[in-house]
């Protein structure tokens, strides 16, 4: 039994007896419902799903089209950072396909209800090829909100950014530059555009227009052609260093082959990792033999079977089989496609799974290739 403390003698010992009733009375007051303002904002800035209508299609090169997309009621669209992409899902024949497309416009356009994305024609990829060839004005996309894994961050990065891009990375590069031009970001950006030949350069006029802004510079480097006004050859350490008179961050938006070359250049620069950022690229993988396997998929206790291939990710095989699986990043980071592997051997590229994920055979089908017949379960 506790000893009574004198200092508390001013407080009434009976009030506790009424506390429950007071609580009841308090809860029975008539009050107005509170509006969830933060939740409303969340629905506007990170909506789960956006329906977008194709308003215009511009062919800017034989293999690149810019699609102008509008929200259904022309209301403003979720804002984004330069270098973001949309994860778009399209129904083709019997199944849903999901791919990412870089935004080409800026947040300022989004505020007016418009997104622009670039679509490359890739005959090997059914979905991009379908969008490029078949889709027309008035058609509808189901899209995610803009997602950003590559781009400038004012607290992390230096305000002198050197961005090395090839055709694969030129769309996010332009979108980053446009964000500067729109006054959204304030830093100096120098783009090094790598191409084999002059004819392969995309969107040159747009890029040159952006250089009227004093914070944006573009240098073109042609590896297989000499042309007045354009650098010839490769970027080396000394060349890069000449742009680094003050602390700089280096961004690389290029395909995997280029990355290997640049890793050597960057090693010579001896920059801490903090100053080098890479655009996520889909890991390249080729199995020794091109083999066909059977994939069994369990959904809601129902079993489906389909073909899968040693040279295709499980997500790709699921899409081709018309079995829907949510997916987004396609490089194993976002986790949207996480699935349980019940049976079979697989090859995982860039395996960053946690201890428990490995223990329970949780895989990311977007970066996983079958090496035998497999069984997976989608919950």
């Amino acid at each position, binding site marked *: 039994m*506790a000893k009574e403390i004198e200092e*508390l003698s001013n407080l009434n010992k009976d009030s*506790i007896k009424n506390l429950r009733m007071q609580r009841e009375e308090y809860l029975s007051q008539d009050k107005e419902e509170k509006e969830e303002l933060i939740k409303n*904002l*969340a629905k506007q800035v*990170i909506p789960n799903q956006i329906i977008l209508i194709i308003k215009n299609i511009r062919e800017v090169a034989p293999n690149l089209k810019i699609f102008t997309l509008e929200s259904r009621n022309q209301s403003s669209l979720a*804002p984004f950072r330069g270098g973001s992409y949309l994860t778009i899902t399209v129904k083709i024949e019997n199944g849903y396909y999901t791919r990412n497309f870089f935004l080409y416009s800026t947040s300022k356009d989004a505020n007016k209800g418009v997104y622009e994305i670039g679509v490359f024609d890739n005959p090997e990829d059914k979905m991009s090829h379908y969008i490029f060839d078949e889709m027309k004005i008035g058609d509808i996309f189901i899209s995610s909100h803009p997602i950003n894994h590559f781009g400038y961050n004012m607290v992390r990065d230096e305000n002198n950014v050197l961005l090395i891009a090839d055709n694969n990375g030129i769309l996010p590069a332009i979108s980053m530059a446009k964000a500067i031009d729109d006054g959204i970001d304030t830093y100096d950006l120098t783009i090094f555009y790598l191409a084999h030949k002059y004819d392969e350069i995309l969107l040159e006029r747009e890029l040159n227009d952006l250089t009227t802004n004093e914070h944006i510079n573009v240098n073109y480097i042609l590896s297989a052609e000499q042309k007045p006004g354009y650098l010839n050859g490769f970027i080396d350490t000394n060349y890069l260093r000449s742009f680094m008179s003050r602390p700089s961050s280096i961004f690389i938006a290029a395909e995997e082959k280029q990355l290997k070359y640049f890793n050597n250049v960057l090693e010579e620069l001896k920059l801490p990792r903090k100053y080098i950022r890479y655009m996520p690229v889909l890991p390249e993988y080729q199995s020794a033999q091109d083999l066909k396997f059977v994939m069994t998929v369990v959904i809601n206790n129902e079993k489906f079977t389909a073909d899968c291939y040693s040279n295709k990710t499980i997500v790709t095989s699921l899409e081709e089989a018309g079995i829907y699986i949510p997916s987004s990043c396609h490089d194993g980071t976002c986790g949207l496609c996480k699935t349980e592997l019940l049976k079979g051997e697989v090859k995982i590229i860039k395996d960053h799974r946690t*201890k428990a994920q490995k223990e329970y055979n949780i895989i990311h089908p977007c970066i996983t290739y079958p090496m035998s017949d497999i069984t997976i379960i989608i919950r």
Partner: protein
Amino acid sequence: MQNKYDAIIVGAGLGGLLTGALLSKENKKVLIVDSHNDVGGTSIDTRLGRFNFNTNLDALFLSNPENEVTLKNILKLLGLEIEFKKIPKAFRVITIDENNEGLHVKVELPFGVADFINKMEEYVPGSQKSMIAFFNIAKECKEALTYIANTNEVNYEFLENSYPNFVRISNHSLSKVLDELRVPLKCQEILNTYWTLLGSPETQIGFVHYATFLFDAINYELEVPEESLYDLSLKLTNYILKHKGVIKLNSKVKKIITENGKAVRIKLSNGAEYGGKKIITNLSPVATYKLVDELPKKAVRYINNHETGAKLFTIYLGLNRSIEEIGLDSYFYFLYHTLDSENEFVEMQSLSNNDMICYTPSVINPDVSPKGTSIFVINSISYTNEIINPGDYITAVDKITNNLLNTFTNTTGINLKEYIEEIKVITPVDYALEGTVNGSYYGERLSDLDNLLPRLLNKDHEDYIENLYSVNGFLGDLYEFDNTYYKAKVIADKVLREDSE
């Protein structure tokens, strides 16, 4: 109508999974649904570059081995183990020095009641007597709460005889009772440091709640799990599946359907319906009632008589140097503009420039990131309802992040920006889509008659829908430190008891 389950659990966060595991252990047929593609709720696991950002980096647990309802002990019931590491010091609190004039107050307190009181006496000479009284009363409050939480009908005579100080304190605020105890003002301010962990200032939070919370922390010490809570959620998932439980992901619950005032089934946004004897949500009570198809007037009033609690703005930083090189030497950094929590509360109605609770997980667990690197977490709390133009949202987030980092630098002399290799920011807007009410990470705010003790005394009168329960991580429905896990145990036990009757 699909087959009937013993329990349907809405939300596969840790609370929902733990409840599900405890029920499946007793062979109950359990269905867990979650709108996300993965289990774990807010226990995120994000990989950026060479860093893994997990929620367990700043999840605090009580290291009391005798307490049966800590996460560690509940997991033992399931045959699961989880390792913890102790936090070295109770807290370090520093007042923010906007203009870098060297004027800040810097105080550090140890764990252990005796050590705590002694250190406080060094900072505030003459505080010892009132501090001893404070901890004695805190212990009494803890015992009284344990009695109330475990009894069906409160015997007030027994309460008065056994816990004479507790009955006098009843629902008085923290500041009121500290004043009565003649705790020196400077000592009160230091003592109140943990207020941001409960999310209500000294004038609003009940003494009973804060005192038991602080007593538990100081007396038993705090620890953080060594492995990620996300991995724990996978372990629980595996346990449930092995015990024939069903988990449906990508399944958003649109409505909880009632018949004659009883919850009978859930309806998903794809139209599918599932029936269950009990429906348990991994949401706050307010968020739960908002899902019910037909609410009695009493429940509507219940919703509207709650204030939204504190909101979090979280910054995870992957730093490219070790803590020794950077100079981070404390697990906790509480950075407050002033030590007057009421004043702070009033100032925290906007999103920018708020008080911070910072954690350095690397101080206790160097393995959270690769050798030569470290992880630092900043939680800034606010009560904002500020309307931001959607177009300005990203700029606003960057500005707030930048300001918080600058404030940390000006106050501690440590320039974090120099070392940031990876950064992940989670705002109240992100939390708003995670089943919280209006983005409040803390659930309903604790104040006046919406404090722990009145909630506890009235708990049997606030189940407005039969067969509907809520398990959640929000503070103040129950009196234990490991709130979510304790609730999971209480609700699972309740369901099992009712089922056997």
